[in-house]
């Protein structure tokens, strides 16, 4: 078991989510940066979908109640064990009584802390993910939360370091496929212009792009509700696109004019408010 001494701005438990309930209004949720969660799990030889802690902007401190193996991935929050730095994307142990502290990451938003055996809170509808939109899943961590750790898997860690580039702090290009409702784009080039930045209101549900606007066909104001996925780029009448992330609503009534490549949604999930974004569209 590990005990939370400080949660930071927001720390939640996440796995790969609970697909299958969109028809009754529950989205998939799960880790915002799935590649980072999966990497953390692989470092401790967990199954890819084991539950870990997703820490927003660091500030998380935990104490081990028994010895555990851990790995930290995603936004490169400087990690220390009782004050001694431990590497990002590396395997380390936290002995009983030792404290792991995550500082503030210089880039990216979300850091993943995997524990060998996985965070073993009871699953809800098949997942341990906290869905911040629907309120389903384990509550965000607070000071004093004790997290059960599951039994160690039979597999053993085979690598102690994974050389993965951290999320960049500068401009990021995201690739998207046009459609399904790109006919509402008066000028598709508008979406690909320079000058987009991540808006100040960005969370696990989605992020708004500001700095430009895209002209929307007047007929687009009230299309019938359609399903949404993470990575969907929706265009409200104001012309500032919304990119949906892990806790997106299951349906929405504004046109989805393009959808990020699945591989690029993880990178989108690490973008900070104010960070420049470029979108490239493919047919």
């Amino acid at each position, binding site marked *: 078991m590990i005990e939370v001494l400080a949660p930071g701005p927001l720390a939640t438990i996440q796995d790969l989510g609970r697909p*299958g309930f969109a028809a009754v209004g529950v989205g998939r949720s799960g880790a915002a940066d799935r590649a980072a969660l999966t990497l953390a799990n692989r470092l401790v030889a967990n199954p890819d979908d084991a539950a870990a802690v997703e820490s927003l902007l660091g500030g998380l401190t935990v104490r081990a109640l028994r010895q555990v193996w851990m790995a930290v991935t995603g936004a490169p929050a400087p990690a220390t064990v009782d004050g001694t730095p431990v590497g990002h994307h590396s395997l380390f142990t936290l002995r009983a009584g030792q404290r792991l502290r995550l500082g503030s990451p210089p880039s990216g938003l979300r850091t993943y802390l995997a524990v060998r055996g996985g965070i073993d809170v009871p699953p809800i509808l098949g997942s341990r993910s906290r869905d911040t939109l629907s309120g389903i899943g384990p509550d965000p961590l607070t000071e004093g939360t004790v997290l059960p750790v599951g039994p160690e898997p039979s597999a053993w860690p085979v690598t102690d370091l994974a050389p993965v580039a951290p999320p960049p702090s500068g401009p990021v290009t995201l690739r998207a496929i046009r459609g*399904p409702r790109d006919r509402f784009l008066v000028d598709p080039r508008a979406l690909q212009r320079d000058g987009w930045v991540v808006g100040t209101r960005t969370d696990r549900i989605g992020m708004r792009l500001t700095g430009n606007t895209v002209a929307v066909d007047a007929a687009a104001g009230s299309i019938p509700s359609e399903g949404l996925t993470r990575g969907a780029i929706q265009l409200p009448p104001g012309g500032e696109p919304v990119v949906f992330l892990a806790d997106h609503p299951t349906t929405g009534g504004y046109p989805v004019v393009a959808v990020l490549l*699945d591989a690029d949604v993880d990178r989108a999930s690490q973008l900070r408010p104010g960070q420049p974004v470029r979108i490239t569209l493919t047919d």
Partner: protein
Amino acid sequence: MRVLRYGDRALLVDLESGAVPPAALARACRAQVDGLLDATPAAQTVLLTLDTRTDPSEVRRQLAGLRFDGETSVQAARLARIAVRYDGPDLAEVARLTGLTPDEVVRRHTSGTWEVAFGGFAPGFAYLVGGDPALAVPRRDEPRTSVPAGSVALAGRYSAVYPRPSPGGWQLIGTTSAPLWDLDREPPALLQPGDRVQFEVAA
């Protein structure tokens, strides 16, 4: 049926022509198409999300051979009876908008069955269609910041029950104590797409 691209991990099936209800198509896809993570029925579409190993062109091929078994949809359709106290704060406004008396609004809301077209907005929130066309009303100009759980509402051609307190812009005509969403129940949602709903005046 048109199949539209939706990024590299999903397809959007557009049923504009209306021959097949989205809820029925979603059910058929779940039963017959391999490699789906989820099928999301909506007003005129079904969004199919694919697992990472599935080739979208393979799903398109399977969609072309999809069979609609009338019996499955009838079996899946349950009838939920929901008792309502018609005391909503917008009942008089709905009467004014529709040109009916409040009693006539209630009579029309409780005559005949509604059908769950799709879910969304919140866990357990079901968009109901098939009611009396005279009850079509616009949303409120000013959405409420908090609509109480159990509020029975109208907007456009839809009726719905708010499963929990939330902001909302629909016209509130009544209240029910029926639990629309209960995680301790299997399934948690009282209303699934394809189900039928009979509203009744609470005794």
